[in-house]
């Protein structure tokens, strides 16, 4: 039964002339892009040196975090907005019913419950570590947030209280906290500084830690709610 469904998904479906034309189009695109890759400038350059030169003013020590949370923080802000819009879309398409609470699944097996008891505390610690690590090395709000989100999903599957069991107000505030944090920083920098989201170097490190923490919470909750929002309704 499951095998039949997989075959159904994987079987080629386009009619022959259409398929042949698309094969040609895909091959032409692959060839053009390959030529473009070969043509790319190979001389030293890019934005590496620009980022490294200004790293001292960004308040963090890792160049990728500096780009995400300071130099191009616009991108990160709107990315959080996109995440929220994705969740709003999922909830809207779901048909207006609430996210499934912990009690909506049949009782989980002992193995899963035991695993969740061991894994979730470890995942929260890993998320905290990844968040802290972003300042110095590969890590940061995104990685930490996704680990938190998966922890919420595991909690739900294990029958523990998860995102949907939070009070509605707390959940909404948590979901929006990253966007709100960026908004407050933007307003403050408009009023108190010259350029929106331009962090003064002495405060940059502290502001980034706060923003990253808020973003981690909101990414974690959003990822958890996205998965819960895809669960079929049970009556």
């Amino acid at each position, binding site marked *: 039964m499951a095998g039949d469904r997989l075959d159904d998904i994987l079987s080629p*479906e386009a009619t022959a002339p259409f398929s042949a034309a698309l094969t040609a189009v895909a091959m032409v695109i692959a060839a053009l892009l390959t030529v473009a890759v070969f043509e790319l400038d190979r001389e030293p350059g890019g934005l590496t040196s620009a980022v490294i030169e200004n790293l001292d003013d960004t308040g963090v020590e890792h160049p*990728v975090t500096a*780009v995400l949370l300071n130099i191009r923080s616009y991108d990160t802000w709107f990315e959080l907005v*996109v995440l929220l819009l994705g969740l709003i879309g999922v909830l809207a*398409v779901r048909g207006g019913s609430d996210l499934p609470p912990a009690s909506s699944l049949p009782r989980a097996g002992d193995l899963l419950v035991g695993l969740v008891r061991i894994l979730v505390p470890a995942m929260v610690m890993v998320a905290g570590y990844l968040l802290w690590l972003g300042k110095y090395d590969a890590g940061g709000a995104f990685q930490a947030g996704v680990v938190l989100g998966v922890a919420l999903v595991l909690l739900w599957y294990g029958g523990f209280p998860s995102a949907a069991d939070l009070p509605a107000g707390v959940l909404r505030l948590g979901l929006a906290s990253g966007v709100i944090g960026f908004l407050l920083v933007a307003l403050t920098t408009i009023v108190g500084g010259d350029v929106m989201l331009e962090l003064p170097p002495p405060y940059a490190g502290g502001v980034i830690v706060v923003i990253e923490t808020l973003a981690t919470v909101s990414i974690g909750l959003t990822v958890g709610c996205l998965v819960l929002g895809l669960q079929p309704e049970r009556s």
Partner: protein
Amino acid sequence: MNTYLLYSITGVLLFALALYGAATGRHLLRKIMALNIMGSGIFLLLISIARRNMTDGPDPVPQAMVLTGIVVTLAVTAFAISLARRIFDQSGRMRFSEKEDAG
């Protein structure tokens, strides 16, 4: 043939393959998977571009774009799956096709 070119061209080929898959597949899950693979091809290309001229280390800007892109892909995929589920719930079908089928 250095590592940069190997990764870049793999990314390009993944993108083109998945573009073909997204265009020819009529099953909605197949289209969604193809879109994800297209994204992975683009990410691989961007990450390898970040390393193409190592002077002070890899370029952090494309890396940050990929990091952002992965999370956006997650949201887009979840939204696409929820749309596919709604289409299935309402029509009983999981594919765009002229011929009638039971999904």
